[in-house]
């Protein structure tokens, strides 16, 4: 009996070992996350991308979560570079300096830095998503569903990405109701559920009946569910936290990009680039349209289709800046440089941009 058990155990070990070997044979993709993978927002979606890579390409992956931006990030990235990773995705803006620093030391390893703009050596690429496209759809929905004509926006940091989202949202809303108002509260954090909940309560108290957020926790959605106001999910589908109130959510789907890039490593065709991924390639996806009037859902689906086919671009003139000066003439499209460094509001935002 003992012998039998031992041989079964041996067989098991053997199987494990053999799969282990074939697993580690060629490519290893590694990921550094700024939050916990269970945040149901930013880091969660990146990890979904990692899982898709594992499933699709059968390569080995590794990750480290909740890595603080700063001195510890450099160690996390370097650890991966040393441990045989062929490609390392660093998924927060704050990893920009350490990513570039480590990349210089390991020319054979490829680095992909999300939302950054520095590519100091040949082996660093940058990538980001055009999430503002989804914000435009949300703005349109908000204006059609709101009774008070006021929406509340829980914002993190006044960086171009967030400012773009706010502007795109108000442009979408104004396409339905030119007098639509948007109140903004800055919580100065990507992930602070207590503060996000307080901010949501504040906005509701001040008359907003639609909430949207550019922070990563589900706290605002839970407040919306309690107070019975409508809300939009952020980064991932948050319908479980607001089943009666979520209108839709912008889902960051990194899987197509991650699969493409890891495959490029496998095939030896990886090249440095800087990409801005949008709805057209399936990297920005809208969650199902729920809890809204049928005509709103129809209008939302229509504009989504137009953005997807590149027939429509949210930042198309005429657009006036908050201070009343003209930004874009009728039919004129925004240039990428201005969008990437956007540091002004368009007309209709009821807030002063923190400088």
């Amino acid at each position: 009996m003992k012998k039998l058990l031992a041989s079964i155990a041996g067989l098991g070990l053997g199987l494990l070992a053999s799969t282990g070997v074939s697993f580690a044979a060629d490519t290893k993709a590694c990921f550094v996350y700024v939050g916990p993978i269970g945040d149901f927002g930013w880091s969660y979606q990146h990890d979904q991308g990692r899982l898709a890579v594992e499933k699709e390409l059968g390569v080995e992956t590794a990750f480290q979560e909740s890595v603080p931006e700063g001195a510890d990030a450099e160690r996390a990235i370097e650890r991966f570079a040393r441990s045989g990773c062929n490609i390392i995705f660093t998924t927060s803006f704050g990893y920009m300096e350490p990513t570039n620093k480590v990349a210089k030391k390991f020319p054979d390893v490829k680095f992909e830095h999300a939302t950054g703009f520095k590519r100091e050596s040949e082996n660093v690429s940058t990538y980001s998503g055009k999430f503002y496209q989804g914000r435009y759809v949300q703005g349109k929905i908000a204006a059609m569903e709101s009774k008070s004509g006021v929406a509340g926006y829980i914002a993190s940091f006044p960086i171009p990405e967030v400012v773009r989202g706010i502007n795109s949202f108000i442009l979408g809303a104004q396409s339905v109701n030119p007098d639509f108002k948007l109140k903004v509260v800055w919580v100065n954090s990507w992930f602070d559920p207590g503060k996000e909940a307080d901010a949501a309560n504040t906005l509701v108290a001040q008359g907003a009946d639609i909430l949207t957020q550019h922070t990563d926790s589900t706290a605002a959605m839970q407040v919306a569910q309690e107070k019975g106001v409508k809300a939009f999910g952020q980064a991932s589908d948050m319908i479980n936290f607001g089943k009666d109130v979520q209108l839709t959510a912008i889902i960051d789907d990194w899987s197509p990009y991650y699969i493409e890039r890891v495959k490029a490593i496998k095939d030896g065709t990886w090249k440095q680039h800087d990409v801005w991924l949008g709805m057209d390639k399936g990297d920005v996806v809208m969650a199902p349209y729920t809890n809204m009037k049928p005509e709103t859902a129809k209008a939302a689906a229509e504009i989504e289709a137009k953005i997807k086919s590149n027939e429509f671009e949210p930042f198309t003139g005429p657009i006036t800046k908050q201070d009343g000066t003209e930004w874009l003439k009728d039919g004129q499209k925004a240039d990428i440089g201005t969008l990437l460094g956007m540091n002004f509001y368009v007309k209709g935002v009821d807030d002063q941009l923190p400088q």
Partner: protein
Amino acid sequence: MGLVEAILLTVFTAATPLLIAALGELVTERSGVLNLGVEGMMIMGAISGFAFAIYTGNPYMGALAAIIIGVLFSLLFAFLTISLVTNQVATGLALTILGLGLSGLWGEAFIGVPGIKLQPIIVPLLSDIPFFGKLFFQQDIIFYFSILLLIGVSWFLFKSRAGLVLRAVGDSHTSAHALGLSVIKTRYLAVMFGGACSGLAGAHLSLVYTTQWIENMTAGRGWIALALVVFASWRPNRVLIGAYLFGAVGIAQLHIQALGFKIPTQFLSALPYLATIVVLVIISQNRRLTMVNTPASLGKGFVADK
């Protein structure tokens, strides 16, 4: 619902955990023990409250579990500082660090899981009073309890014999011992009471404030509770004022923003801490006030002479 009412409601929510934790620590300190582990006991209360609400499906069981875990966790501190006479400052810090770590380990399974909320208990008739009804009589059980706790602690400390014993032990453990009072037993009970309160305060965060589990979700509230005790110069009524002031400042900054005023948010966030320092200075300047209320043997270990 008016704006003032809505603002006050959020202030009440923010102030309740501070009030409870500070009252618990006040009793502990009145017995002469300084427990810097409030933050750690609170976070243990937050996770155990959340977890047991889910295990049992009943948020009241969660709150109860938080109290029990708070007591158990404080016993660790009590054993070291009272029985083994270790340094209270260092042991309290260790308790906080251990609490943050253990709660993180336990909480891993609960990240992203929707919690169960302690629903408000609507008091019949009284809740129909305009304005006040909504504020005071449509709250969750922990809010009601915090008010009872305030009354109870005031009565206990100044009107009961046991309270007299507690204060005697805090003021001079050697004389109390000479009088035949049990210093050790009194202090154990006081620390355990502090643990129970911190645990419940933590449960308020995860069962009422934001019904989810997040690592470090106490976010320094335990330290504020400690400051509140000194701010209040060890008087329960002043803890009430302090807790609501602190809660109000935190909420006010968000409203000021949403109204479109432009003041650096960091300045507003730092304001309560600055205010505490100022109040501490004013209080400590008033010698008579501090002398009367400060437990004279606060922070000092006690070893009975043979």
